[in-house]
């Protein structure tokens, strides 16, 4: 199980399970930086240098979940979601969205998001959801 501040001490080599990655997809924006800060208590958070790389990571056997942090600028979130869903049917995918943007949230759900989390008020919900799916 991977959670905030989980240092995983005491596990033997035989008991050790591969740590699954939390993939953060987003441009270098304030929102993405906030997401990375909120997830600093988790192990194995990766922020690929490009969206193509983020998509490639979602197909990895180690992929634990995908967090789409911002509007991805040139890329449409919906198209990105569809591609990610094609690569990994059961991968938990969280989309961060602005408050009250119900239409975007509904569209994200229709295109394969597991959950949509509005920010603000806080990233606590995101951390709870990630902890839950990574168990």
């Amino acid at each position: 199980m991977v959670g905030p501040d989980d240092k995983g001490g005491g596990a033997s080599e035989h008991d050790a399970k591969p740590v699954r990655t939390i993939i953060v997809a987003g441009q270098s924006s304030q929102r993405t930086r906030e997401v990375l800060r909120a997830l600093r208590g988790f192990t194995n958070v990766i922020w690929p240098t490009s969206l193509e790389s983020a998509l490639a990571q979602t197909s990895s056997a180690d992929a634990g979940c995908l967090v789409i942090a911002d509007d991805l600028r040139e890329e449409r979130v919906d198209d990105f979601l569809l591609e990610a869903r094609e690569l990994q049917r059961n991968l938990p995918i969280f989309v961060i969205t602005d408050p009250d943007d119900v239409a975007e949230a509904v569209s994200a759900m229709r295109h394969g998001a597991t959950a949509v989390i509005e920010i603000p008020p806080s990233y606590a919900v995101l951390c709870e959801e990630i902890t839950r799916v990574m168990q």
Partner: protein
Amino acid sequence: MKELPQTVFVVDDDDAVRNSLRLLLKSAGFSTEVAASAQEFLSTYDAAQPGCLLLDVHMPGMTGLEMQHQLNVRGAAIPVIFITGHGDIPMAVEAMQHGAFDFLQKPFRDQELLDRVQRALTRDTEYRARLRQTERIRERLASLSPREREVLDLVTQGKANKMVAGDLGVSQRTVEIHRAHVMQKMEAGSLAELVRMMMAVAPPQ
């Protein structure tokens, strides 16, 4: 069997909203039925009736989300479009996670609603067509003899006639005869088509 016409069901406790939606849908050529409460709708709803559902979120008694849950418990697959004057993201996400087709916040343009209704009806039509096709495949499977079913299972696993004969302890000629009967009864033009049929009726993973 004659297809039942598609109906747009409207469930909303507000008289004015129900009437307005009914007029709009009627003007666009849709057949509609209305209900003033979730209980009223559920007491008369027949899952065999094709169509889609426009459902208010906030209603006294059973809410729209609670009614969605009841429909899910019943195994109903009718596309549900939620309508609300004050929705929020957690509510919308919950509705979508539980299978809603769409979630619309007021105010919305009439054409936007009509477009989504049409998409929902198309989804329902496609779903029912798949159901009928699956049922036909099951009927054909039921017409196979036990030995023919064994041959079908082995052949669709990719085994050659010679291997099937070995597995079943019969001659290759016998397998060929059974295989020909299977193809005829299943109305399959090729092995690939047969495999697709079996995948269509396979239980979900």
